[in-house]
């Protein structure tokens, strides 16, 4: 009996991943237990400045109208958006070329894989030498963090385009450039979105790390500065916002996939 319910809800929950109304109660209970544990442990063992749920909740109204916090959020978001836009354009172009041209793929595949495997943080000292301790170095880090997962996914998508589509287009004397833009790219969009989802998460990490390292104004620097001056509660509001962005990107991509590509199942990652 109970096994049956496992099976039913697992299949029902998968495509939507929306909470069924019956799930809400255990979720709330778990949330309350986690918060209570956190509160209790901090109260008993940690110094007073350490962030705990009650004090974080108390400073939220103050922090979210703080102009410093708002401008820091703005800087980081704009930088991430710019970086993702650059990474998307570059990634789509290189990815399409790589997916459709075996020669290009053979030449650059190992470099794309290699740079993808390189922990993006290690380029920070190099970028700080190249661009100085500026927001330019942050932008470069974000682009570097994001672009390779887009290239890899777009290339995979471009490779998976059904041959018939291209044959039909070719027999109607379509040019290669038009085939890339009007057939391969749309067909590769689900892959592009999957790549974008990865890239967005990596870009966010890249931005925060760059701000730590370069001391460039933004949400990461806001967290660093406040935690250094023992304003842990204020700093933690920044972490909450970052988590919200992370989840937000994730939900955005899931929503876009379902809205614009209802035929595409995202189970296969």
């Amino acid at each position, binding site marked *: 009996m109970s*096994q*049956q*319910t*496992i*099976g*039913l*809800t*697992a299949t029902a929950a998968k495509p939507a991943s929306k909470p069924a109304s019956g*799930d809400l109660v*255990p*979720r709330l*209970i*778990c*949330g309350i237990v*986690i918060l209570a544990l956190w509160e209790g442990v901090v109260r008993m063992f*940690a110094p007073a400045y*350490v*962030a705990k749920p009650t004090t974080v909740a108390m400073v939220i109204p103050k922090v979210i109208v703080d102009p410093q916090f708002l401008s820091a959020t703005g800087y980081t978001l704009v930088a991430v958006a710019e970086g993702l836009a650059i990474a998307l354009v570059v990634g789509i172009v290189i990815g399409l070329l790589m997916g459709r041209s075996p020669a290009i793929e*053979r*030449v*650059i*595949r*190992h*470099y794309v*894989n*290699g*740079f993808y*495997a*390189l*922990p*993006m*943080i*290690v*380029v*920070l*000292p*190099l970028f*700080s*030498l190249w661009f100085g301790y500026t927001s330019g170095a942050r932008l470069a880090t974000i682009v570097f963090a994001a672009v390779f997962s887009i290239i890899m996914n777009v290339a995979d998508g471009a490779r998976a385009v059904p041959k018939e589509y291209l044959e039909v287009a070719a027999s109607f004397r379509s040019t290669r450039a038009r085939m890339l833009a009007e057939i391969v790219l749309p067909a590769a969009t689900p892959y592009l979105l999957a790549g974008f989802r990865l890239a967005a*998460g990596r870009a966010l*990490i890249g931005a*925060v*790390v760059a701000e*730590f*390292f370069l001391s460039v104004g933004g949400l*990461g620097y806001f*967290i*660093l500065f406040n*935690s*250094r001056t*023992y304003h*842990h509660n204020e*700093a933690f509001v*920044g*972490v909450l916002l*970052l*988590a919200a962005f*992370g*989840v937000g990107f*994730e939900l955005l991509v899931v929503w876009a996939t379902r809205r614009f590509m209802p035929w595409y199942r995202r189970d296969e990652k």
Partner: protein
Amino acid sequence: MTAILRRNAPFWISIACGIALWEIAGRSTSAAFMVPFSATMLRLWQLIVSDQFVEQFFDSARLFLTGFVIALIVGAPLGLLLARVRPLRVGIEPYIMTLYATPMVALIPFILSLMGFGFAPKVLVVFLFAVFPVLYNTVEGARSIKPELIEVAKSYRSSEWALWRDVMLPYTLPYTMTGVRQSIGRALVGMVAAEFFLSSTGLGQLIMGASQNFDTGGVFASIFVIGVIGVLLMRLGLMIEQHFARWRQ
């Protein structure tokens, strides 16, 4: 032999072109900006000979392995437990998802001010980076177990232990290994982040030190080494994943 050579020829040609490009770019710009391949290798050799490098390498490896193994020991069993105990899973899953999507680097300043500069806080950073992919993928795998499998096992009066050993574990292992592959990459990022922002040790310190001394050759040499380690670890992760995924296809 020649067949192997011919098959791998594009790879070697592509690598050779890359090195040539690097060399030319390095020679035609200032040394503070970029260092040619030959000078990078020379610097790397100097670092290896001077013993600094080997010591730092093992320092990093110790950090990486400790954090990663703890993440595995915690993540995989917890994932299985969550999969079997449905209310717990339903309750806790959204929070795991949230933590999975949160940039963990943002917690480093808190860890620094609470735990200071020792080895433990750095292990914690690597652990936090690595644990969620294992946990998330194990839960994902366990909840995709076909209910018929469990029903059949139950109707043959399988004990709880046998159910875990013969149904749950083999079924979820490939998923866990996907998580392991992702975790390897993340743990490497966590390792470098911990070495940058907590007490400077290991390969991270090597890069930081070189960058602060404007020793661009040293920066390139360390990045090159970490890149090679990253590629090798990713290969290893893929091999592990494919090894366990064989029967799934």
